[in-house]
């Protein structure tokens, strides 16, 4: 249990951004991520995943504080104004901490 602390960054956004975000992640130093399909509601209305255009994805990134900060700043600048997007950060304890 000699776990170390890392950050977990979660982003919920439009699935049409998946391709672009994944490309961005590489640039921003993200080494791994996990994506699940989602639906939901927020300030931009209901997104019910009935078809492509209205589907969401939920992205999880385990990383150090630096990377988390960079990603959050960048997505805010690049995507927040025009896309349905929500993100939050929390602390997690990981094994194999060299991976993140």
């Amino acid at each position, binding site marked *: 249990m000699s776990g170390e602390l890392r950050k977990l960054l979660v982003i919920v956004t439009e699935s049409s951004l998946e391709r*672009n975000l994944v490309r961005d992640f590489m640039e921003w130093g993200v080494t791994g991520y996990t994506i699940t399909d989602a639906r939901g509601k927020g300030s931009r209305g209901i997104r*019910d995943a*009935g*078809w*492509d*255009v209205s589907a969401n994805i939920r992205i999880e990134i385990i990383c150090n504080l630096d990377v988390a900060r960079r990603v959050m700043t960048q997505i805010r600048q690049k995507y927040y*104004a*025009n896309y349905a997007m929500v993100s939050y950060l929390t602390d997690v304890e990981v094994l194999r901490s060299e991976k993140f």
Partner: protein
Amino acid sequence: MDPVVLFFLLGLLAGLAKAEIRMPSAIYEFLSALLLITIGLKGGVELAKQDVWQILPQVLAVILMGISLPLIAFPVLRWAGRFTRADSASIAAHYGSVSVATYAVAVAYLARENIAFEEYMAVFMVVLEMPAIVVGVLLAKGISRRTEWRALSHEVFLGKSIVLLVGGLLIGWISGPEGMVPLQPFFFDLFKGVLALFLLEMGLIASGQVGSLRRYGVFLISFGIAMPLFSSVIGAVLGAWLGLSLGGIVMLATLAASASYIAVPAAVRISIPEANPTLSLSASLGVTFPFNVIIGIALYHKMAVWLVQQGVGS
């Protein structure tokens, strides 16, 4: 009324009544891919029978139409509709492009009326799908360096619908009529049933647009009806002038009148991010698609008959 249109109405009513009959999106994507491939295959088989060089002028004329329509729609949206530049460009791109499902309903309509048409017109659909997107992006941004042309051209040339349609065309073309025989039961015999189910889903999705239509109001609804009427005239006259058959004129009018709701939304969402996707989709899906499917195609048929009687074209 054609049963496939009844399926659309069923979906529409069920959606409005908030009945939860939606099929999983995997099925929707499957049916959509089937329609695209089938239309491509049919077009390819016909293409194999044609002298391709002879069609080329027609194709160029149709591309020109695809460039003109959004250029006409844009100022109307911008000044009469008072939409932002981005929104006007986005909506214009949707209406310059085409809808596969509308094309498919027109195919079913003509089959029912026993009217032949030039099936190689699937090629027209391909060349109509793309230019409007490029025009839309140019309208929104000018020829700015900030446009990610690489990303855009990826969306335009490698979008799902283009690849499946063109792929189907090429396979149909290479294989020719005999090569298609064993594929007949799956792709061709099932066509109308697949279309029926797809329209059921489309009805559900269209019903979901009512809320935003209420919000964005009268102009969008009027535009969603007036624009296809206008475009259909352009399409029909062009068809007559190109010497297409009666069925061909109806199809070109329908193509012109139809508005995209798959390829364009995806490309525009990435290339014109400031545009509000709800606006263009509620017009295209919530107004124009139902209009074309329920009333429009029959109207374009009447117009084509009239044109042919006038001896326009040939």
